[in-house]
């Protein structure tokens, strides 16, 4: 499947959604900003961007998006979540808010802000399985993956902690605790498109 035959939505409730759209468009993909169930119905796959997961979680409810999105994920729609997006796709979340709900699209457990406050945010060159040469990964108040379930493949780790994971089989799910949308390196977005194909 060539990139141009896909329409990929970017959840645009809050956060760095525009940067994801730019990356996907550089790869020749049609993108839609998703704010309503009607937008969601038009997309073949979805990106959940970085931002504040608590804010996005509340807006998923007020926009009436939570149930339609859960249904699309159950039906096997491909999804790529970065940072807050990873939190929303995880099975369990610690240090979040009691009322914060995640979709459980990938069986991982994450700790919100697990690396600490902004002063602890960092960037690093990391090797990624399947990519030639390192990827510059930017971690902003990033979540820490604390538990990996069955069927989760780790593509990159930093200091022993998984930072890039995907579903080994079944519905295509890719999650990163860092922000590929903050660099001009589109290889992880292409990796996601390849996973969809």
């Amino acid at each position, binding site marked *: 499947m060539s990139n141009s035959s896909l329409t990929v939505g970017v959840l*645009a*409730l*809050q*956060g*760095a*959604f*525009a*940067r994801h759209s730019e990356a996907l468009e550089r790869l020749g993909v049609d993108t839609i900003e998703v*704010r309503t169930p009607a937008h969601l119905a038009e997309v073949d796959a979805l990106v959940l961007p*970085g*931002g*504040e997961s*608590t*804010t996005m979680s*509340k*807006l998923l409810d*007020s*926009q009436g998006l939570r149930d339609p999105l859960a249904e699309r994920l159950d039906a096997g729609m491909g999804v790529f979540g970065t*940072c*807050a997006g990873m939190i929303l796709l995880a099975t369990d979340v610690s*240090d*979040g*808010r009691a009322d914060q709900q995640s979709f459980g699209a990938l069986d991982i457990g994450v700790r*919100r*802000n697990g690396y*600490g*406050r*902004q*002063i*602890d*945010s*960092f*960037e*690093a*060159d*990391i*090797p990624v399985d399947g990519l030639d040469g*390192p990827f510059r990964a*930017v*971690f*902003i*108040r990033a979540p820490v993956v604390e538990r990996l379930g069955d069927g989760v493949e780790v593509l990159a780790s*930093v200091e022993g902690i998984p930072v890039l994971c995907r579903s080994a089989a079944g519905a295509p799910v890719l999650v990163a605790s860092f*922000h590929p949308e*903050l*660099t001009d390196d589109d290889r992880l977005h292409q990796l996601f498109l390849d996973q969809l194909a």
Partner: protein
Amino acid sequence: MAENTHGTVRVKRGLAEMLKGGVIMDVVNAEQAKIAEDAGATAVMALERVPADIRRDGGVSRMSDPDMINGIQEVCTIPVMAKARIGHFVEAQILQALGVDYIDESEVLTPADETHHIDKFAFDVPFVCGATNLGEALRRISEGACMIRSKGEAGTGDVVQAVRHLRSIIGDMKKIGQADEAELFEWAKQLRAPLPLVQEIAETGKLPVPMFCAGGLATPADAALAMQLGAEAVFVGSGIFKSDDPAPRAKAIVEATTNFMDADILAKVSRGLGAPMTGINMDEVNHGGTRFEDRGW
């Protein structure tokens, strides 16, 4: 072994990218911080008094007590920002030591230096600064600011200055986009701004850092107005906790900021919010009041 690098420009500007499309709310205690987070704020600004009270009380306004900032950090899972006085780099050092996520070098506090702003490159924590025009924005960026907020006039509940400043900044960026190479030298001179930043705007059409709006926003419609004019997120200060019923107003402003182009949703969220802050209009401020926006050089 890869090195982890902290405090880079990309890491500092990165947090501002994550706050886009959201609402940053002024709070003066842990209880208000909870209300803000419950309403869907992307961050809170911890300060002793909201700008409306600073305006009313007068006197010298300074960095908040560390106990108060820590108290807010303890109840919040979202980023906590705090204000330092213009030029007061020691207040900024203290705020960095407290682990605040963003420092606002703010005209709402009484300036500590009448000539110099803080050298913001000297810090690993990122800074946001206010601006009334493009030149001021570019000077702050050249000092290391990683987010710009149009100043408006804080503590008034009058949106007119926020609109004026946004239109000024964005209008000049549009004109620079039309200028030829030779004219960019004159733009840099007129704006009292570094030429490379002016050249970058000519190329990209936007600031190199996220641009948010602050100062005088009090209603969901105000927030959507700022977003339609080109702001990438909004700060709401006195507008929430000086209103009759802060929690629903805060939630409505969050929803208005996400749906800023959708008038049907804006109409829905604007209903039944009770009275907004009474406010003080700019004519009154100009006759005997303090114009915070004039602070900063």
